[in-house]
């Protein structure tokens, strides 16, 4: 009988610090599997964000840098420009990427920097404890929006994949979800494609992953999955927003 | 011994280049030199000026309130800086654009219609070279042949305009020697 389960080489044996029901662990594993499958671990450098995934390097086993809040795309730019042979990816959450780091991600994408961004969208600030994110849904409660997000005051949630898909510069921009096995399989294919484009030196690649945050949403893991299906997916439509020719 | 020359005019009259060529020639004669531009909003079409400091020892302050000489390419420059020039210096006046004079009797005035001479030589764009060579011939700070070579080197990439600038240079020297 063959081996039923093994840990990817690009993943450490550490237990993660993520909360029960959080989808970061799934996203980490997909990235690690893709790095293994492409055989690129020895030339891959990851960049950790500020947010729950700040310690991603404790679980993903390759060279890693730690960025300041939102600045990972600028660091990736610096790295990829001076070492185009390296495979560089940023792993960022929605507070990091869509709020404080909006400038850096837009300009890196628009320059067509040849690195990969994995964007975890769970519609909330996780690590700092459930504050409102640019991706928080209308009416969704957050510690800094105790009555729910008031869009008259704070605008509508930002759809990053749609936004980056509008850039004229060629790139690969897709939105996937991690809410059920079928979605997870599709998400892995998208992540693999994103890294492949980078290996080919083709374009910037961006994979938005609709994720859950049961703790800060105040829901059980199962209810969180359902809430994400019902509330996030109708607004954040899955699919490719840009594919290179 | 230190000599300071202020070049002043409108932005676009080529005074920064004239000053640079003078500094370059002085450097080739093993002098210490500094080329200090004014920079900022005035670069965009207003009065631009630039100071060249030439010395036989290491230059201390490159900021000069009272220069030894002045090359004034337009009227505001003459009005603004004529009184700053140290006694005994040369005040060069571009009479094509400046109807007035310095009204000083403790300096040497050199009055040359550089625009007209440059136009006669082929193009008004060479006016700054006429001014440079005329001033240099009068003030006798650097070797003229060396300066002329520096002008030639400067335009090495635009060989077509070298004859114009050589002619302008000679015209400037002639008029200075005959005035």
């Amino acid at each position, binding site marked *: 009988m063959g081996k039923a389960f093994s840990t990817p080489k690009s993943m450490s044996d550490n237990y993660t610090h993520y909360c029960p029901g959080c989808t970061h662990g799934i996203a980490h594993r997909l990235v690690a599997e893709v790095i293994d499958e492409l055989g690129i671990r*020895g030339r891959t*450098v990851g960049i950790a964000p500020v947010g729950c995934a700040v310690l991603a390097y404790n679980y993903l086993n390759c060279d890693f840098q730690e960025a*300041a809040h939102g*600045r990972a795309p*600028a660091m990736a*730019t610096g790295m990829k420009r001076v*070492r185009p042979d390296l495979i560089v990816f940023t792993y960022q959450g929605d507070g990091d990427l869509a709020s404080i780091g909006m400038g850096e991600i837009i300009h890196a994408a628009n320059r067509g920097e040849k690195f990969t961004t994995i964007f975890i969208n769970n519609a909330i600030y996780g690590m700092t404890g459930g504050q409102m994110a640019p991706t928080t849904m209308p009416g969704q409660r957050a510690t800094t929006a105790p009555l729910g997000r008031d869009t008259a005051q704070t605008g509508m949630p930002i759809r990053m994949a749609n936004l980056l898909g509008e850039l004229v510069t060629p790139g690969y921009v897709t939105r996937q979800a991690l809410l059920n096995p079928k979605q997870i399989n599709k998400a892995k294919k998208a992540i693999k494609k994103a890294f492949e484009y980078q290996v080919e030196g083709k374009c910037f690649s961006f994979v938005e992953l609709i994720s859950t945050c049961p703790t800060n949403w105040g829901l059980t893991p199962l209810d969180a999955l359902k809430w994400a299906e019902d509330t996030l997916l109708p607004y954040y439509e899955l699919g490719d927003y840009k594919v290179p020719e | 011994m230190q000599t300071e020359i202020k070049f002043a005019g409108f932005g676009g009259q080529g005074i920064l280049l004239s000053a640079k060529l003078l500094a370059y020639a002085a450097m080739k004669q093993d002098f210490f030199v*500094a080329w200090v531009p004014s920079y900022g909003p005035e670069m965009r079409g207003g009065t631009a000026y630039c100071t060249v400091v030439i010395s036989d020892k290491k230059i201390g302050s490159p900021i000069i309130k009272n220069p030894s000489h002045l090359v004034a390419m337009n009227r505001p420059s003459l009005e603004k800086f004529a009184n700053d020039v140290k006694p005994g210096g040369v005040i060069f006046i571009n009479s094509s654009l400046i109807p007035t004079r310095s009204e000083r009797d403790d300096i040497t005035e050199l009055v040359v219609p550089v625009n007209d001479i440059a136009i006669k030589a082929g193009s008004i764009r060479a006016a700054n070279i006429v001014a440079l060579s005329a001033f240099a011939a009068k003030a006798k700070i650097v070797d003229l042949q060396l300066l002329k070579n520096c002008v030639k080197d400067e335009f090495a990439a635009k060989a077509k305009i070298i004859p114009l600038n050589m002619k302008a240079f000679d015209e400037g020297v002639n008029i200075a020697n005959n005035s």
Partner: protein
Amino acid sequence: MAKVLMKGNEAIGEAAIRAGCKNYFAYPITPQSEVAEYLAKRMPEVDGVFLQGESEVAVGYMIFGAAACGERVMTTSSSPGVSLMSEAISYIAAAQCPAVFVNIMRGGPGLGGILPSQGDYFQATKGGGHGDYHLLVLAPDGVQEAVEMTMKAFGLAEKYRGPVMILGDGLIGQMMEPVEFPDDLNTEPSNKNDWATSGMDTRKSDKRNLVRSLFLDPKELNDNNLALKAKYEQMKKEEVLYEGYNTDTDYKVLIVSYGTMSRVCKTSIDMMKQEGIDVGLLRPKSLFPFPEKAVFKAATKESCKSVISIEMSMGQMVEDVERCVKGQRKVDFYGECGGDIPTPEKIIEIIKALL
């Protein structure tokens, strides 16, 4: 090599290339944009990297990313831009990556002006960003020294695995002076395999490297800060640079001044010497580490009655001068910082009032 006449900004760009730096990221700002303009042309000629970032904030992190890979990298900016980069500089210091920053100072605070200033002394020498760190700061007084210090900066950044700053001002950036590019500087890059995230394959190693500044364990963070402190102590022993001018005389007044301002002071000293008045000058060339002992020694010379710090600021370095003189002499200050550089005549007037 023969002398060439170059603008300070352009010469700094060329110096970086001569020192083996093939990577430059920047954002335009007066009065240093000529560095970027020069390197936009020059970097492609040497197969180097030139990139204009979208902001100084982003540029700071482009520098961080490149430095973390172990590549020689530089950026240049001017005061407001350096404020924006200060965030990244704090991270770079904490993560211990070598990088070279050039600040061609202009007047501040705020947008201030675009003329020369020395108003960023505090920012450069006391931190600028958050946390316990220092930059090694070198202050040239002209184009030749700007070249030499820029070239030297890369080796120092690698020796100390941290950010090094060249602190010039708008005059040094804009002025042309003859320069000679030294070729005898040791510009061999150091071995970075122990720490750089250069890819495991590059290092032929199974051990991965992490570049980070987050240390949640108090002991780990304290240890990292102690490691930084140890470097600063070593700098104080090994990297202090200064120049004495007319200090072998029985001067009654000692001027402490750096950069462009020190040149004006030298002219004043020469002029006063002709009147039979001796004034000494101590010019710090390294601002951090500050020449503490040299200032104390020059200030406490028997003939010396008082000390004055002369700056293009409202009084910043003077705090270090006071600290070093330890109350042994009166310490005065004179400064202007609107963009007009005080004239030698003005300095003489100030000094004579002290005699």
